């Protein structure tokens, strides 16, 4: 009997051993050096981290090795949750803004960073996306993204229009290009709901709901989506409908970028992260911000990436040194120029090499900054306001839902579960 079972037992032990060996992350210390791992959803940045940023850090920090360990963005939240709960999470975790991070803070994933010098480099608004309910900072901001309107300078010259600064001028420009007939005025489709929300409504809307006043008003319950300010914002969004290309209902985000970068459309509402894509064909591209209302400009600045310290990390000292380094001009200068379209959130003065990134950064001057409308608290229940806005924004273009009905439906959905935090 023993002899019969022996091979199976050996096999089982061997399999188990192999499995475990595969799971262990290279946290081994060779000599005096320690290795810290960075969890991130930016798989596309592997080369940048490994070739540029990590060597720069290791050069000035003897004895610390850094390992960049990204997971695909769609699987990131689930992966981090199962890793941290299984005790195998990375030492530093890239933080999603607002609600997801608040849930992670609540589950005890992070250590407080209140004692770090790095925190002092950031304003309260910059930290806000990653603080706990009592204002304790849990993540060091790395980068934000901006929304704006890319425009094809050659088409603007040919048709003879200038950059619009008000909604009326904006509609005039679109009408002139449409009447000219040679180009699509707007590279905009409604197949992907998220970009209707993030790049169009949350881009032009803040001028109507007065940025933070409206956003925080929804959170503390003093404002409703059915208020005239919000209805006006949805109406401004609706006013773009006549200028969409034909078949826009099934035009995806990628289709839009291509339509624009092939020079067939004049204006593309998009995020700063797409800078490289829209200029990939060598077009002369500029960018303008959302039209002002009553002379006041608002600019969407969305907190995007930050790093927090895993509460169960075994290398906290080294990880903290890395977090401190994230707030230095050395890191920020390196980072934003390797990754055009992402912007530093600290008070350090940073210069951008990419001309379009410089133009984008200039949109922040003289404008009131505000993040995307519905990501903070308003999407932490069912139905999540953000997902609902994607759906409703799609319906407004596809099925002629009116701004009044749209806002009424959104507010009803919000009222069904949300208790104001005020």
């Amino acid at each position, binding site marked *: *009997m023993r002899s*019969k*079972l022996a091979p*199976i037992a050996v096999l089982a032990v061997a399999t188990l051993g192999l499995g475990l060996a595969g799971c262990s992350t290279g946290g081994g210390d060779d000599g005096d050096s320690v290795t810290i791992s960075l969890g991130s959803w930016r798989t596309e940045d592997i080369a940048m981290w490994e070739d540029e940023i990590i060597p720069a850090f290791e050069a000035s920090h003897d004895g610390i090795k850094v390992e960049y360990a990204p997971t695909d963005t*769609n*699987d990131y*939240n*689930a992966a981090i*949750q199962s890793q941290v709960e299984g005790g195998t999470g990375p030492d530093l975790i890239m933080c999603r803004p607002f*609600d*997801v991070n608040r*849930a992670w803070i*609540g*589950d*005890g994933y992070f250590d407080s960073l209140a004692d770090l010098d790095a925190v002092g480099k950031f304003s309260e608004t910059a930290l806000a996306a990653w603080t706990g309910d009592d204002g304790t900072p849990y993540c060091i901001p790395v980068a934000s993204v901006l929304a704006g309107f890319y425009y094809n300078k050659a088409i603007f010259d040919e048709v003879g229009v200038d950059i619009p600064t008000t909604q009326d001028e904006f509609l005039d420009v679109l009408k002139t290009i449409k009447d000219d007939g040679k180009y699509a005025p707007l590279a905009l*489709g*409604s*197949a*992907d*709901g*998220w970009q209707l929300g993030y790049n169009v409504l949350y881009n032009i809307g803040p001028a109507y709901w007065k940025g933070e006043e409206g956003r925080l008003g929804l959170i503390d319950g003093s404002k409703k989506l059915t208020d005239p300010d919000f209805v006006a914002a949805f109406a401004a969004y609706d006013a773009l409908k006549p200028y969409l*290309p*034909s*078949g*826009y*209902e*099934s*035009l*995806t985000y990628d*289709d839009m970028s291509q*339509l624009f970068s092939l020079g067939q459309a004049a204006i593309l509402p998009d995020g700063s992260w797409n800078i490289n894509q829209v200029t990939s064909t060598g077009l002369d591209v500029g960018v303008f911000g959302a039209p002002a209302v009553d002379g006041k400009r608002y600019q969407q600045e969305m907190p995007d990436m930050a790093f927090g310290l895993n509460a169960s990390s075994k290398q906290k000292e080294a990880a903290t040194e890395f977090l401190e380094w994230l707030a230095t001009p050395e890191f920020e200068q390196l980072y934003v120029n390797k990754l055009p379209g992402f912007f530093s959130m600290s008070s350090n003065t940073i210069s951008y090499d990419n001309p379009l990134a410089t133009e984008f950064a200039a949109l922040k001057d003289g404008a009131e900054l505000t993040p995307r409308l*519905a*990501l903070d608290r308003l*999407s*932490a229940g*069912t*139905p*999540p306001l*953000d*997902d609902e806005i*994607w*759906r409703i924004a*799609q*319906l407004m273009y*596809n*099925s002629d839902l009116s701004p009044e009905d749209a806002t009424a439906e959104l507010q009803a*959905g919000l009222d*069904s*579960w949300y208790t104001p935090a005020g």
Partner: protein
Amino acid sequence: MNRTAARYRNLILFVLPALLVYTAFAVFPLVNSVGLSFFDSDGPTDVFVGAENYVHLFTNPATSGRFWNALGNSVEFFLIHLIVELPIGLLMAALLTSGVLRRSVGIYRTLLFIPATLSVVIVGFVWRLIISPLWGVVAFPLLGTEATALPTISLMSVWQYVGIPMVFLYTALLAIPNDVLEAARIDGAGGWTQFWRIKFPLIAPQFGLITILTFIWTFNGFDIVYALNGSAPGPNYSTDIFGTLFYRTFFGSSGQVADQDLGATIATVISRSSC
């Protein structure tokens, strides 16, 4: 006596490896998932809440609306597969065995089956380009309107997997003994009569099998919808099926925080309703 014991010992020995793997990777997660649906794990500790998650799923208008919508869409997804895939698969199998293709049978059989071996992501991407109003051959936004989006996605999936019922029916047709057909021919039956009176009744049991398999595949369907429309499949959730509803609830989408208890509840209800 001793002999029987030895035989059972051997039996256990042979069953054990499969049983261990099956228990660890199928039975345990399943039981665990059903268990999870009775808890509320939002707080720092899990709290037993009984059937509250189920009550919430079916009484909260936001969640129950999405659930019934996904159920309707899953049924539609299944029916389109069944109604379109079966006749086309039967026609192809009949043509392959009819002898009119002569020596090119092998080539056609391979060509017709190739799509089933492609990655869903590629199928979705290629079809999206073909029917794109901007670059493709159809001016109408098939994927963009609520009425046509789900049928369009279903037909892409049918195009991909039509080879599978074809192969089932093809092998069944090949298995029909020649003497039966010969006897029919001697009795004066033509091709048409032979097919409907002899071949069709003999392969009929295959339809039950294919229907069951199609049902399982479509109700577990997820990949083609996710590849084309993501985890909040629009427009207006008109292409949301059980797979995407569960994924969105359990893992969260970019604007939605993951709710694993409700996700487990949905998973339990789905597996109940489709068993």
